[in-house]
């Protein structure tokens, strides 16, 4: 014979249902009680992600025929597309915890050994697109600048309304991390971050600083434009 539910059973069900209802139906960030926990979990996920990065594992390359072409989306955070008033005056500055601070023109960068690959781009939104990128491996620049032992992170700054990113040194030194000046065999267009952008198939799109101006090696972990607003810091794939 079935026992009727007691008041206590109903109360217990209510607690469970209430907890479920609490977490849904709102833009709840966890409140003062759970928000620190969520932040701590996000850092744990960053550490697990960093541990997973292999310095030798390369992201898959695709045939040029699989490129997404004009379907490849683009974005910037400024109100209008950031374009240099004086393109010839643009310089890349490399500094921070380095033995040899550098100032490089686009022509100097283009004279260095280049890498070209056709890879898949993963956006944090969930879309993917394939394109060809050409540029200088960041390791080439790093070798020239010679970071000190204290350098553990890399900060990338842009002229897109203060957009910036902080990277772990390990992914920055990955062979597929490049400073790209060409997209699909053409000079990098302004909507893809001309004249120079950071590119890597190992990180989500929001980590790939466009409109690059400055590279800084640091001991402390730099934030980032979206990262400071709550997006995962590592953004590693």
């Amino acid at each position: 014979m079935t026992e009727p539910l007691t008041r206590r059973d109903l109360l217990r069900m209510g607690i469970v249902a209430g907890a479920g209802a609490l977490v849904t139906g709102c833009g709840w960030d966890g409140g003062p009680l759970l928000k620190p926990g969520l932040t701590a979990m996000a850092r744990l996920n960053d550490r697990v992600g960093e541990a997973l990065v292999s310095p030798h594992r390369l992201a898959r390359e695709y045939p040029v025929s699989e490129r997404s072409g004009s379907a490849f989306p683009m974005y910037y955070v400024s109100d209008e597309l950031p374009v240099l008033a004086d393109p010839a005056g643009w310089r890349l500055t490399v500094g921070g915890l380095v033995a040899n601070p550098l100032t490089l023109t686009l022509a100097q960068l283009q004279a260095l050994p280049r890498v070209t690959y056709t890879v898949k781009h993963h956006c944090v939104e969930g879309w993917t697109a394939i394109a060809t990128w050409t540029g200088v491996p960041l390791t080439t620049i790093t070798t020239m600048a010679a970071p000190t032992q204290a350098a553990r992170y890399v900060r990338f700054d842009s002229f897109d309304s203060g957009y910036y990113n902080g990277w772990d040194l390990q992914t920055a030194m990955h062979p597929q991390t490049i400073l790209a000046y060409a997209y699909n065999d053409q000079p990098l267009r302004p909507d893809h971050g001309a004249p120079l952008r950071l590119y890597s198939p190992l990180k989500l799109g929001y980590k790939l600083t466009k409109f690059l101006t400055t590279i800084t090696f640091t001991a402390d972990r730099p934030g980032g434009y979206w990262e400071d607003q709550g997006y995962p810091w590592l953004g590693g794939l």
Partner: protein
Amino acid sequence: MTAVPAPGAAADAPVPPMPSTGVRRHHWLVRLTHWLNAIVLTGLIASGLQIYGAFSRFGLKGGMRIGPNPFEGHGFPRWARLGGWLAGGLNWHFALGWFFICSGLAYVLYLTISGEWRSLLFRPRDIRPAIQMQLYYLGIRKAHPPQGKHNALQKGAYTFIVALGALSALTGVAIYKPVQLHWLTALFGGYEFARYWHFVAVWVFVAFTLAHITLVFLVDPASLRAMLTGWYRGRFPSHD
């Protein structure tokens, strides 16, 4: 004259009523992981629907569209989402994912060590009893087939849902780290398909949960109390 059973005639006596405490059915770890999962899965689905809204279709940009997807091109209502915006949804999702995986592993580990998997895992020998059980439910077979703690259809359901949980976790990890764990992503047909299967799993979970709750209340409401207290006092006590 009132019939008084003579000493030694116990075999004819009616079966004594079940003790009011019932039968011990669910270990505390099973109850804990069950209800933890109910909360965590609700949060995972709600934050997942928040994330889905950022790109509400499947397939590479400029490539083949993956489907079918009745939800293509639009997000979900606010009451169904958790996190408020993409970053909030991601942080909830990646935090709750750990609880989902850990509670799933704890549950499977408990079943393995305790030996309880024997009454839950659907094996080839359960196929015939499952058919008999289905015939009984359809009214074709009159007598309730003999069963252990769970009938063969229940075993099928409880085995299926653990497999679905594993599939959800693995497709989730596959789209979380598609470069470092590229072999896992490739196993599900690549990033775009892994993301699709991850989404399909949500609706299978929702359908399973609705059927599960309906059956609990229609067929065996006492099993709800058993999942809360651990003691079962309903009409399907264990035959074990």
